[in-house]
């Protein structure tokens, strides 16, 4: 049903970012890689529960598994996050542009009504 376009790939990224635990995991990983056990500890969650979140993050490409075969530490993939930020920024700009056009239109409308109501200018 879905084509694998930039936007659908980003869907997975944003779905992953939508959960507060997963955001907290990313915040933790922003300060360095960590094993599943290390991640489970501060969140007061079982390792299986944390593993589930980690899978979602992995699938979205936001994290990867580090070199150490024993610890299998998770690490942040900042590039993916940047892609998401870039996307958001683009659309924030679009809406800001919409609203700036609306600002201009409102200024125009404010200037008009008195003149338009009483006299019809040619």
């Amino acid at each position: 049903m879905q084509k694998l376009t930039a936007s659908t790939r980003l869907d997975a990224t944003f779905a992953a970012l939508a959960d507060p635990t997963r955001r907290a995991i990313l915040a933790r990983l922003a300060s360095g890689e960590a094993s599943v056990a290390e991640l489970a500890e501060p969140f007061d969650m079982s390792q299986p529960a944390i593993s589930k979140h980690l899978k979602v993050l992995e699938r979205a490409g936001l994290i990867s598994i580090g070199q150490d075969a024993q610890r299998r530490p998770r690490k942040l993939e900042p590039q993916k996050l940047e892609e998401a930020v870039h996307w958001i920024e683009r659309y924030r700009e679009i809406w800001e542009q919409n609203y700036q056009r609306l600002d201009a239109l409102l200024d125009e409308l404010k200037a008009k009504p008195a003149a338009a109501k009483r006299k019809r200018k040619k």
Partner: protein
Amino acid sequence: MPKPLEVTLPSDREVRVVRSFNAARELVWDAHTKPELMQKWCLGPPGWSMPVCEMDVRVGGAYRWRWKSDEDGAEFGFYGTFSEVKAPSKLAHDQYYDPGDMDYAMPVGDPCLVTLELSEQAGVTTLVCTMKFATEKARDEAVSTGMTDGMEIGYARIDEMFNPKAA
């Protein structure tokens, strides 16, 4: 100066956009309910236009909006029915996504309930637009396409992400 666009997630299924305008709310209302005005500002990115803007602004009245890219002719739109019309303070409608020829994976089927509320104080109108999605998943998908009004959302999320105390 109007405050910048502000976006929050008041609940699992909602996105809220707040923006203020230096104008009476009757004008902001007109800009959202008169097609000839809406087509002047609600255009999206450069190179897009809004060729279809039909609105029967009354309870039970239908609307249809469509945007078109000048570059490749791609189109998408929204349509639905007004459920609440209280000029100039409150407008509510359901919103169905019409993907046209865009390949955005936005949910098609479940409508989103959009509520626009306008309040005025000392000549400044504050617009609060709340989009309530059928499910949390639908919201996140819509947000991720960036084609809803919730564009700044991810910013808040990412700020939060790197500031876990606020999360």
